[in-house]
């Protein structure tokens, strides 16, 4: 199980963790708008540089923030491969295999790399978001936006109980293995069908545990009073307003330039 990214926010070692969660959400949205608007290398490179600068100035942990990028490498490899083999323009090599022509497209290869940069941009901004946003502050910010507490709290509750469920899954897997069942030793094509013996006990345990927890929550009058109090507070400062303005302005400029065909 990967280390939770928000552990950094809990440690409270950076000014970035004091930003309003909606400021970070606005920045993430702005980067998403930029990434979807254009595949221009200069624009995407500048956006990535800005994100890396934010990480450096905010003293975010480089290793844990950029580690998730390793996970998107296979995806980017397949995207570039498909683009290189499937694009009809800019063919640099071709040969016939079993009566079928295989072509290598330079245009497709470059396009694959540009799309890789787009994926990286979105991955980095989302990782930064979850690195600096404290889950309790996120819940408070959602409540301030009039999201009912029961739903705003569900994300925090899920984060809290995830290790427990993964532990249950490991126990079930061990129990099934002791009966001769082994999901890891079989044909990978058939492995998905072998999930069912794990699925049934896991779902039943999940429902049983949920009943107990819901009862405990109800006994403590969960959601009985609409005016909740929080042990954390979120406030908008001048830096929040500045960052929101910069992010949204940049997104608007890029969007307009893309629509006008300038980039």
């Amino acid at each position, binding site marked *: 199980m990967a280390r939770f*990214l928000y552990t950094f926010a809990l440690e409270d070692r950076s000014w970035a963790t004091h930003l309003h969660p909606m400021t970070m959400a606005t920045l993430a949205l702005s980067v998403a708008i930029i990434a979807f608007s254009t595949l221009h290398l200069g624009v995407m490179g500048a956006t990535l540089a800005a994100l890396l600068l934010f990480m450096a100035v905010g003293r975010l942990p480089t290793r844990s923030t950029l580690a998730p990028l390793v996970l998107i490498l296979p995806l980017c490899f397949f995207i570039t491969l498909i683009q290189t083999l499937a694009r009809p323009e800019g063919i640099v090599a071709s040969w016939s295999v079993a009566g079928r022509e295989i072509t290598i497209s330079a245009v497709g290869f470059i396009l694959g790399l540009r799309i890789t940069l787009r994926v990286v941009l979105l991955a980095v901004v989302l990782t930064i978001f979850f690195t600096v946003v404290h889950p309790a502050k996120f819940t408070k910010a959602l409540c301030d936006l009039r999201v009912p507490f029961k739903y705003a709290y569900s994300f925090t509750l899920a984060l809290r109980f995830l290790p427990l469920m993964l532990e249950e899954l490991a126990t079930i897997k061990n129990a099934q293995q002791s009966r001769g069942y082994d999901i890891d030793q079989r044909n990978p094509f058939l492995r998905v069908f072998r999930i069912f013996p794990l699925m049934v006990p896991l779902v039943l345990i999940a429902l049983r545990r949920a009943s107990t927890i819901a009862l405990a929550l109800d006994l403590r009058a969960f959601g009985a009073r609409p005016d909740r109090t929080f042990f954390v507070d979120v406030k908008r400062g001048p830096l929040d307003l500045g960052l929101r303005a910069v992010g949204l302005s940049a997104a608007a400029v890029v969007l307009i330039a893309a629509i006008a065909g300038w980039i």
Partner: protein
Amino acid sequence: MAAKAGEFTIPLAKMSIKPVPGRVDSKGVVSSIFLSLAMIGLLQFGERLDTFFFGGLFPVSGRIISITMIGLGTMLYGLVGGIIVADINPLIATATGTSPIAPFWLLTNAAQAVCAWLVGARFKNVISWPCVVAYTVAASLVLVAMYIPLHVFYFKMPWQKMLTLYAFQTLLSIPVPAIFLRGLLSVIRNAGFVEE
């Protein structure tokens, strides 16, 4: 609505409470969250396989697990419960850094919950083959319809050349989740978790 003699009716499929919003008391919300956590655990197996074959571009195992679990959540707890099951997973996957592109599943997973609600509300008994097959067909077709724009606009993929892969995905994501979902619903009913 009363069930026929000898026939069991899961609440929320013609239903003792309305499917929208569904069951939104503490038990409904917490149970949906736990089903979502179970889905996250199971996806650990599926995603490894999908990443190995197509880098996660054409998820097959992940789709089978998500259709099963989101259908289960929606048919047990209604649309809100289904959306909780569907949308906690992308958020957690991003927060744990296990899948940075997971936010794109927010829409695709929510669409599966909507399919389960629309189909489930039309059947008297969701623990039936016609219901689960109708749901998996609807969910699979909606997913293909949503993935093509994603592949075209986001990844700039030549979708015409990938129809075989879409067909392979759909071929597996209709029968397998139907069998899994039917089995899970029966087990849950027999274990006494369904409250009428």
